[in-house]
């Protein structure tokens, strides 16, 4: 580990800390229908959208209507994307002449992008036409992110209002999110990326003759426009197979800084938006503090493990100073690769700038465990916020048990119904991850997937289902996942991780919203102080640890000891 490495990490955290308050305040204004500097340009477009779609923006929805609207919108998005992938061969903007996407892969990919997972069973440059990338995948990068934020807003309003069933209007929230937040930020970021070297063209590839006389085909396309929203929307699905490790998708340290910032900027800002909307900024800061503490710890752990490197490699007479360089790019330091790995998995993003599969065992454990902790550190856009509010509810319940008082969060009493729903929601992750991993690891059709043998091969399967159920999208990419078995099973895991979590979460919002919002009394447990922050951290770690430690012990942990014993497979 080096001073420069730590400095690179610290600067990034500082950038996020500086940008989160203005972004959070801006989003609070947008989502509460207040005017912003963008309204002169965008308000006419927003009104046109409502008029054409027959939306009455003043009409509120209860939790059922909000949830049904969301489910229907997601289902139609799935159908459109599936059809587009199947038909790409006969549609325009296919300069590389790629064939149709197979049914199981199209199902997996459509689910993947509609659920904001962006798991890639495919290699972008060898599978997807430009039309599929632009009008299919890029659209879902915007829309699925906006859906996540909309749901978080609904839950926020349940705590902000007293005795109301109105959680807002799903269509309005989605429209405003795309128009005022995601699209303007994406335009600025895409242009910045182009200026820093990222391609943006409608051509498929350039053909060159190398200095040694070989033919080289350089795949490219409209990369920058997709890249911007891929990061801002915590989507993570890359234009190219290797995502942001590809020199066209991440040409230098500057683009790396911008992208790392974009992965976590909005999720952190949304925590502050939450504080503003519930009328107490400290509440948002407390949630952001939980996220920041655990994300920093994970980054430090990954950096330490990757800088320490691989003792088996060192024993072969290879220099040890740069750390573990397998799967990493020379232009990025081990520090910034470790930071990216922690951020992309803490944030449910899933893009990579280095191959997690080739991390050291403990370095690879960090991203895996960050996903398993529930994608709330800081989580995906929206999904991170509603996820951490569920953890906050669990925390006040645990704290209430300790002192024998009815638990209360933000003035709303938490009853048995909300607790049952919260537990139901957080049980989805272990069921989908551990259950499906067990199925895949016990069937031949699952066991042929991993490219690595020994505990690392098992870890590839565990990582795949963690990533799918956690709606992350990163991978131990040695796994050959583009088979009907994995495409379908991972697709189901993604659906469960998204919708089987959202429905109980929205039911909680529906149960909380009509309650009276009480003012804090002398006996109210404050949920903005250090004690509460510590307790939420404890709850997140204990939950994740209890549920997943045995599974991790069989994978990365045992591999760590075997690596130090010099054992290879």
């Amino acid at each position, binding site marked *: 580990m080096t001073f*420069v490495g730590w*400095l*690179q990490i610290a600067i990034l955290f500082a950038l996020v800390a500086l940008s989160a308050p203005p972004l959070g305040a801006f989003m609070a204004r947008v989502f509460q229908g207040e005017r912003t500097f963008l309204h002169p340009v965008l308000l006419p477009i927003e009104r046109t959208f409502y008029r*054409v*779609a027959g939306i009455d923006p003043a009409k509120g929805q209860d939790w059922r209507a909000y949830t*049904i609207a969301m489910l229907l919108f997601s289902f139609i*998005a799935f159908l*459109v994307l599936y059809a587009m992938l199947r038909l790409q061969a006969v549609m325009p903007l296919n300069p590389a002449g790629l064939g149709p996407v197979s049914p199981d892969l199209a199902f997996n990919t459509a689910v993947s992008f509609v659920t904001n997972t962006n798991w890639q069973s495919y*290699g972008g440059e060898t599978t997807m036409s430009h039309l599929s990338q*632009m009008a299919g995948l*890029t659209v879902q990068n915007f829309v699925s992110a906006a859906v996540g934020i909309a749901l978080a807003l609904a839950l926020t309003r349940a705590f902000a209002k007293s005795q109301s069933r109105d959680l807002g209007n799903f*269509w309005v929230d989605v429209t405003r999110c*795309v128009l005022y937040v995601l699209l303007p930020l*994406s*335009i600025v970021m895409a242009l910045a990326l*182009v*200026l*820093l*070297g990222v*391609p943006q*063209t409608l051509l498929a590839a*350039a053909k*060159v*003759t*190398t*200095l*040694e006389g070989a033919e080289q*085909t*350089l*795949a490219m396309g409209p990369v*920058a*426009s*997709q890249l911007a*929203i891929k990061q801002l929307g915590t989507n993570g699905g890359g234009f*190219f*197979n*290797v995502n942001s490790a590809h*020199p066209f998708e991440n*040409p230098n*340290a500057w683009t790396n*800084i911008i992208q790392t910032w974009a992965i976590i900027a909005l999720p952190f800002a949304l925590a502050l938006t939450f504080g503003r909307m519930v009328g107490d900024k400290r509440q948002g800061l407390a949630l952001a503090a939980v996220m920041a503490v655990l994300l920093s710890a994970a980054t430090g752990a990954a950096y330490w493990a990757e800088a320490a*490197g*691989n003792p088996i490699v060192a024993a*072969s*007479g*290879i*220099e040890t100073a740069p750390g*573990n*360089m397998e799967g990493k*790019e*020379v232009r990025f330091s081990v520090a910034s690769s470790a930071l990216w790995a922690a951020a992309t998995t803490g944030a449910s993003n899933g893009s990579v*700038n280095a*191959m997690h*599969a*080739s991390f050291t*065992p403990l370095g690879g454990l960090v991203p895996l465990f960050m996903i398993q902790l529930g994608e709330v550190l800081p989580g995906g856009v929206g999904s991170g916020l509603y996820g951490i509010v569920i953890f906050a509810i669990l925390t006040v319940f645990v704290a209430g048990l300790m002192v024998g008082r009815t638990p209360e969060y933000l003035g709303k009493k938490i009853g048995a119904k909300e607790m049952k729903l919260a537990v139901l929601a957080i049980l989805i992750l272990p069921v989908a991850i551990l259950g499906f991993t067990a199925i895949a690891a016990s069937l031949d059709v699952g066991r042929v997937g991993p490219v*690595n043998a020994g*505990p*690392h091969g098992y870890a590839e399967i565990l990582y795949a289902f963690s990533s799918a159920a956690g709606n992350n999208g990163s991978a131990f990419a040695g796994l050959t996942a583009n088979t009907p078995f994995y495409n379908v099973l991972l697709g189901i895991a993604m659906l469960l991780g998204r919708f089987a979590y959202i429905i109980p979460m929205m039911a909680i919002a529906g149960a909380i919203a009509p309650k009276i919002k009480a003012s804090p009394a002398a006996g109210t447990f404050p949920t903005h102080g250090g004690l509460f922050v510590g307790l939420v951290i404890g709850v997140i770690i204990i939950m994740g640890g209890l549920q997943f430690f045995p599974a991790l012990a069989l994978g990365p942990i045992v591999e760590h000891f075997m690596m130090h014993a010099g054992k*290879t497979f």
Partner: protein
Amino acid sequence: MLEHLRPAIVLTVLFTVLTGLAYPFAITGAAQVIAPAAANGSIMERDGKPVGSELIGQAFASDRYFWPRPSAAGANGYDGASSSGSNLGPTAAKLMERIKAEAARYPGPTAVPADAVTASGSGLDPDISPANARRQAGRIAEARGMDVARVEALIEAQTQGRALGFVGEPRVNVLRINLALDAASAAP
């Protein structure tokens, strides 16, 4: 249910037009104006012919050139249309075999530079570390009948440092330095 159907369908269409067509086309148009070289892949030319992209590594096997890192992209490495890392884990026997085989190509008294024997994440890494470049200077000087000092001076000139002292890693672009090497050899 039906009351939701119209907004669901209409918004899907509108968002597809706005974010799936208007947005990428507008960015493409702007990019082709403000940064045409980067927007089209940062292609490098010699004598008017494209020889590669500054951003994408290419294979070099000859002793006369600096070698890039091992690559797992495509069947033979450095396939610009099929990016890939090795995805070998830290206890993979295949990884250790490859590292030993690659290390044998970099003889010398000190430890072999790590990036010389490890595959990059993309398989298209355009750079090597300055230490890796210096390790190859002797071989290249001999193959070209050049003074080692000239090759080393070239490495010095082609090394990109950290911007502002902390942004990025020191590195040498392999295609750039090999072009410079050919130019230096051609010069008297």
